[in-house]
C-alpha cells in the first residue's frame, strides 16, 4: 500500500477556498456535471471566515432554497446612526412592513460557521469533492498557463484545466503568482468583532423584535470609530449579538489606536452601551475587508484561472451599503458558469474564460462598485466634515430645532439652520457638498 490514491484523480476544476464565492462556483459547476475539487484550509468550511453579520441572498435564492439555509434572523429594521464623541446620536430607522414578508428583502443575519458548512454541503451533494485542512500554497504553471495547484500536504500537487481562486481577502496564491498586486493599506480595512451570548427574550426586548425578525444597526462618526474612516455595527442573531467595528488599516497604523481599543470605545458610547451591556462574550474575531473598489480589482481572467469574491476585491462599502456576500456569491456563480462553458468547449485559456469577466462587469457587482467609485477619495479628503463636524452639527441643530422654551419656532428653525450652515461653510458650501454627494442618493 503506498501513498498514491487509487481514485481516478482527474478533476475538471479546482476551487481554492470553501467560502461564499468558492462554494457558489463549485455548486454551479457540479450542477453542470463537472468534476470539481474544493480545497479548504480550515477544519471545516466557515472556520476561517468572519464577516459583519448580514447575508444578502438575491443570487443565493437562485442557487438554493433559502428557507433551508441556517439563517438567524431576517433584517426587519435598518438603522443608521451618526455618533459624535461627545455622546450625541442622530439616527434614521427604517422598518418597512414589506420586509416582514418573504423574501425579507433578501437580507438575513447568519453565523458563518454554520452557514458556510451548510452551503458547502449543497455543493458536495451536487457532486463536488471537498477536502479540508489543506492549504493551497502555489499555482502549477506550464509555459504560462495555470494547470493546477500545489498544497501543503505530502504528494501535494494536483492538476485541473481551471483553477477558481476564491481565497478571500488574504489572496496569497493570486498575489504570489503575480495575478494581482497586493492592495495598498489605504484600500483595506481591519475589522474586529465580538459575539456575545444573551437569552433570546433579552435580545428581542432590547431590539423590539418578535419571532425571527432581526435588525441591522450601522454607526458612523468620531463617536463610532474615532479619528478614522470606518464604522461600527450591531446585528442581533437568535441568541447572540454581533458587535464590531471596521476602519482603514492606514488609520490603524498611524493613529495609534489599536482595533481592540476602537471596539472597546465603540461599545462604551452612550448610544451603544445600553444595546451591548451584559451577556457573555463567546468569540472575539478579526478579518480584513478589501475596500479598494473597482480600481483595485485585478484581472479576473487568466489562462487556466479566474479570481472571484473578496480575492477580487468585490466588496462595496460606501458607508450606507456594506455588501460583500451578495457580490461573492454572484461572482462565484458567474465564474462557475463560465468555467463550465469553457470546459464543454474544451478550451480553458483566458479568451475562453472571458465571458466570466463580461458577465460580472454587466452584473450589479461591478456596476455598484463603479457607481460608488468616487466615494473613496471623497471620504478620505472630506473625513473631518463627515466624521467630526457633521455629527456634532446635526446634534446641535436638532437641539435647537426641538428646543422647548418660550421663544418662537421661527427662532428655533433659524438657529438650527445657522448651526448647519456653519458646519457646511454657508449656502455655497452646502450646495457644493450636495453636488459632491449627489451620487449617494441618485
Amino acid at each position, binding site marked *: *500500500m503506498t*501513498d*498514491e*490514491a*487509487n*481514485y481516478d*484523480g482527474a478533476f475538471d476544476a479546482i476551487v481554492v477556498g470553501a467560502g461564499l464565492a468558492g462554494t457558489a462556483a463549485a455548486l454551479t459547476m457540479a450542477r453542470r456535471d463537472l468534476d470539481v*475539487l474544493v480545497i479548504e484550509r480550515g477544519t*471545516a468550511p466557515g472556520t476561517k471566515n468572519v464577516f459583519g453579520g448580514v447575508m444578502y441572498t438575491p443570487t443565493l435564492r437562485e442557487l438554493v432554497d433559502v428557507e433551508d439555509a441556517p439563517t438567524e434572523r431576517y433584517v426587519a429594521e435598518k438603522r443608521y446612526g451618526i455618533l459624535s464623541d461627545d455622546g450625541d446620536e442622530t439616527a434614521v430607522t427604517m422598518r418597512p412592513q414589506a420586509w416582514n414578508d418573504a423574501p425579507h428583502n433578501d437580507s438575513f443575519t447568519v453565523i458563518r460557521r454554520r452557514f458556510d458548512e451548510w452551503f458547502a454541503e449543497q455543493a458536495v451533494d451536487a457532486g463536488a*469533492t*471537498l*477536502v479540508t485542512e*489543506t492549504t493551497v500554497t502555489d499555482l502549477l504553471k506550464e509555459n504560462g498557463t495555470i494547470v493546477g495547484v500545489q*498544497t501543503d*500536504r*505530502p*504528494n*501535494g*500537487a*494536483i492538476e485541473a484545466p481551471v483553477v477558481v481562486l476564491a481565497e478571500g481577502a488574504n489572496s496569497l496564491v493570486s498575489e504570489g503568482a503575480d495575478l494581482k498586486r497586493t492592495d495598498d493599506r489605504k484600500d483595506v480595512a481591519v475589522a474586529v468583532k465580538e459575539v456575545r451570548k444573551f437569552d433570546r427574550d433579552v435580545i428581542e426586548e432590547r431590539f423590539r423584535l418578535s419571532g425571527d425578525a432581526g435588525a441591522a444597526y450601522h454607526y458612523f462618526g468620531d463617536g463610532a470609530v474615532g479619528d478614522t474612516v470606518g464604522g461600527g455595527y450591531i446585528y442581533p442573531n437568535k441568541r447572540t449579538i454581533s458587535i464590531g467595528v471596521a476602519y482603514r488599516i492606514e488609520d490603524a497604523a498611524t493613529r495609534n489606536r489599536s482595533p481592540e481599543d476602537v471596539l472597546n470605545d465603540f461599545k462604551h458610547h452612550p448610544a451603544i452601551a445600553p444595546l451591548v451591556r451584559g451577556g*457573555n462574550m463567546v468569540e472575539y474575531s478579526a478579518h480584513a475587508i478589501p475596500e479598494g473598489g473597482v480600481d483595485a480589482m485585478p484581472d479576473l481572467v487568466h489562462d487556466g484561472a479566474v479570481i472571484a469574491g473578496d480575492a477580487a476585491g468585490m466588496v462595496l462599502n460606501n458607508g450606507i451599503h456594506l455588501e460583500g456576500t451578495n457580490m461573492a456569491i454572484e461572482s462565484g456563480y458567474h465564474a462557475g458558469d463560465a468555467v463550465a462553458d469553457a470546459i464543454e468547449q474544451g478550451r480553458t485559456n483566458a479568451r475562453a474564460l472571458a465571458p466570466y469577466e463580461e458577465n460580472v462587469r454587466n452584473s450589479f457587482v461591478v456596476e455598484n462598485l463603479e457607481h460608488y467609485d468616487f466615494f473613496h477619495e471623497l471620504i478620505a479628503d472630506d473625513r473631518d466634515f463627515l466624521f467630526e463636524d457633521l455629527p456634532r452639527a446635526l446634534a446641535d441643530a436638532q437641539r435647537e430645532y426641538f428646543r422647548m422654551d418660550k421663544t418662537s419656532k421661527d427662532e428655533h428653525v433659524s438657529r438650527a439652520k445657522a448651526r448647519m450652515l456653519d458646519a457646511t461653510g454657508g449656502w455655497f458650501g452646502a450646495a457644493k457638498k450636495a453636488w459632491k454627494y449627489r451620487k449617494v442618493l441618485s
Partner: protein
Amino acid sequence: MNEDWNIVVCVKQVPDADDVTIDPETGRLNRSDAPAVLNSPDANAIEAALELRERVGGGRVTAITMGPPPASAVLEVAVALGADDGVLLTDRAFGGSDTWPTSLALAREAEELDADVVICGEESTDSSTGQVPPGIAAHNEWAQLTYVEELEPRPEDDELIARRDVEGGYERVGAELPVVVAVGFGENDPRTGGLHRKIYAETEFEPDTVDATDLGIEDEVGLANSPTKVGGMDTADPVARENEILESTDELTERIEEAM
C-alpha cells in the same frame, strides 16, 4: 521472507474537548455543539501502527472503531494517514456500553481480523479510563503493553518489544504475539496525510460495517451488560486560589516558607 504483521488500530470519535462547554447557569455539560473529532491520543496510535508496518517491512494496518455511522469519519482520518482499510462496528445494541462490552466488541473484531498487534491510544478524552486496551487483552487472553514510548518489532521471534514508561523510570518488556499495545499520549509526532490519499479516504473509501450479531455478542453488549453506570455528572469547581499579586520578592519568600 519477512512475516507480514496484521496490525489493527483502535480509534474513537469523541466530542472535541475544546468545545465541550459547561452551561454557566445549570452547570450541565454541553456536548451537543462540540464537533465530533478523532480522539487526540489515537493520532499517536495511528502513527505507531504506520511506523510499525514500515519497520516490519510489510503487512496491513486496519483501523476499527465502535460507534454510530458518522463515526466512520475517524476511519477516514486513519486511511488518509496511510491505513489500508477500516471497519465500523455499529449496532443499536452497542448503545450505553461501558468498558466491558466495548472492549469485548473490539476484541472479537481484532480476532476476526487475525490481528498480530492491536494498537490503541492511551485513553479517550471523553471518558479517559484507559481501560479499553487492557480490556481487549483480557477478553482475548492476549499479552499487553501499556504506557508505551517506543516499539521494537521482532517478527522472526513472533515478539514485540516495547519501552514502557513507569513511575520513576522505564521498562523494556517483550511480549508474544498477539499483543495489545497502548501508546503513551504525545509519544510520537503524527505525520501529515498525503493530499491524494486524503481525497481518496474522504470520497471513495467505504469501511466495512459489522454488527453485534456478526460478532456473535448480541446479548453481551449494551447498557444491560455494562457493570458501571454513570450516577451523576457535574462541573468540577475550580480549585479556589488567592490570586495575590505581590510587589517584592521577600514577601514571596515568606509565602514560600509558609507553604513548606
